[in-house]
């Protein structure tokens, strides 16, 4: 990985986004470090997806700056270095698992081996020939994830990648995320499920377009004196001015 040690991979400064007349992100600033899994936690509607869209450069922003690997988010030079998984699985319903992943692989200029690898990573090796519109929600989620993992990008922005998946697979995927982080990748993973928070190295708690707290799960526990992360989140919100 090329990012310098210690330098954040994703830097957000004063980001303000207005969507549909409502303030989705209210001037937030944050940094995402390489080599760890950063969890973006918060209730639905808190602005997680908007922040992730801004990080991959598809979100029109009102104010502020988002820099990824030293370049403005969405720069042409970043497009093969950043993997993105949208919240709703963006998959061609009339293509098979393999055809979906292969198309993205071709666009990225990858070998068929890399395509096969991404499919294996998400545990869809037995379903490569299944047409997407016959897949379960969990399988679709995994196809979209495989498309994001293609080519082992330096930065992975994954919007609720494990929602609705079976616990065993979820564990495997979190292991995969940590393995990728171990190799130096930057992972920003969102979830609205608090029990996934403990799987992250560090957390960003988002609520109503603002950052409520940041820190490792244990730091946040110590700060609030609560044990369960659900309770931690509640106390952090109550502490807010």
């Amino acid at each position, binding site marked *: 990985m090329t990012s310098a040690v210690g330098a954040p991979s994703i830097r957000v400064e004063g980001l303000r986004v207005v969507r*549909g007349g409502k303030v989705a992100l209210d001037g937030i600033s944050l940094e995402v470090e390489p080599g760890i899994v950063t969890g973006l936690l918060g209730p639905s509607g808190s602005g997680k997806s908007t922040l992730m869209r801004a990080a991959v450069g*598809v979100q029109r922003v009102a104010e502020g700056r988002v820099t990824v690997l030293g370049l403005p988010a*969405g720069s042409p030079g970043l*497009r093969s270095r950043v993997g993105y998984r949208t919240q*709703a699985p*963006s998959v061609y319903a009339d293509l098979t698992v393999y*055809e979906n992943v292969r198309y993205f692989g071709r666009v990225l200029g990858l070998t068929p081996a890399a395509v096969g690898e991404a499919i294996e990573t998400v545990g869809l090796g037995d379903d490569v020939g299944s047409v997407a519109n016959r897949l379960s929600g969990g399988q679709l989620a995994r196809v979209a994830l495989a498309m994001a993992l293609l080519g082992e990008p330096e930065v992975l922005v994954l919007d609720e990648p494990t929602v609705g998946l079976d616990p065993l697979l979820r564990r495997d995927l979190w292991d995969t995320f940590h393995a990728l982080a171990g190799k130096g990748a930057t992972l920003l993973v969102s979830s609205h499920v608090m029990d996934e928070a403990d799987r992250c190295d560090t957390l960003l708690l988002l609520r109503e377009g603002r950052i409520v707290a940041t820190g490792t799960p244990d730091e946040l526990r110590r700060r609030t004196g609560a044990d369960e992360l659900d309770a931690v989140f509640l106390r952090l919100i109550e502490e807010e001015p």
Partner: protein
Amino acid sequence: MSPRVTVATAARVLTQLRRDPRTVALLLAVPCVLVTLLKEVFAGRPSVFQSIGGPLLGLFPFISMFLVTSITMLRERLSGTLERLMTLPLHKLDILLGYAIAFALFAAVQVSLVSAVAFGLLGLEVGGPKWAVVVLAIGNALLGMSLGLFVSAFATTEFQAVQFMPALVFPQFLLCGLFVAREDMADWLRVLSALLPLTYAYDALAKVAAGGPYGARFVADVAVTAGATVLLLVLAAGTLRRRTP
């Protein structure tokens, strides 16, 4: 721009079409049925079939490709795959040219089939070369495709996309000169028809059907049709936004 991405996109679109054999069958069979019906309804006046058969043959693909592309592109926008594509290292034109190649290939099959029926089985004659009808028909397929790609940006549901056909295609058919010669139209209608690309597409086909003349007007017809296709593709590229609200 990358030929690799363009070809991959064309292959992807063709695979999607192949996954829907009923649509493919309809796209191939319906023009053949319609041209047969056309011959039969004018059984008492064979000269009508002979004069409008050639031009109609060349205009079918305009309609079918308009519909297929506008829906395909709308799905691409609604399913989020377009947003995902926009985060990948590709040029917008790679996507549009990929679509163009796929639908031109499909149109070639469609036109060949309906031409075989019309020229082979139904005894349709044209004054000019039959291959010219086929080539113009493929060009018109691309014109329909470009229009479909462009207007898909203005539809938010498939119902709306389908309604663009009566809204944008039917008037062009009425005014292109197929039903009423343009010289016989009221002035304002003639001016309006001069602004519509299908008028030129039809005129080129009518000239081939009549066996000429292939003068400056014919060259202008072909140039305007091709130019409108390119213009619509560029406008369509403008509707593919990397950043959305």
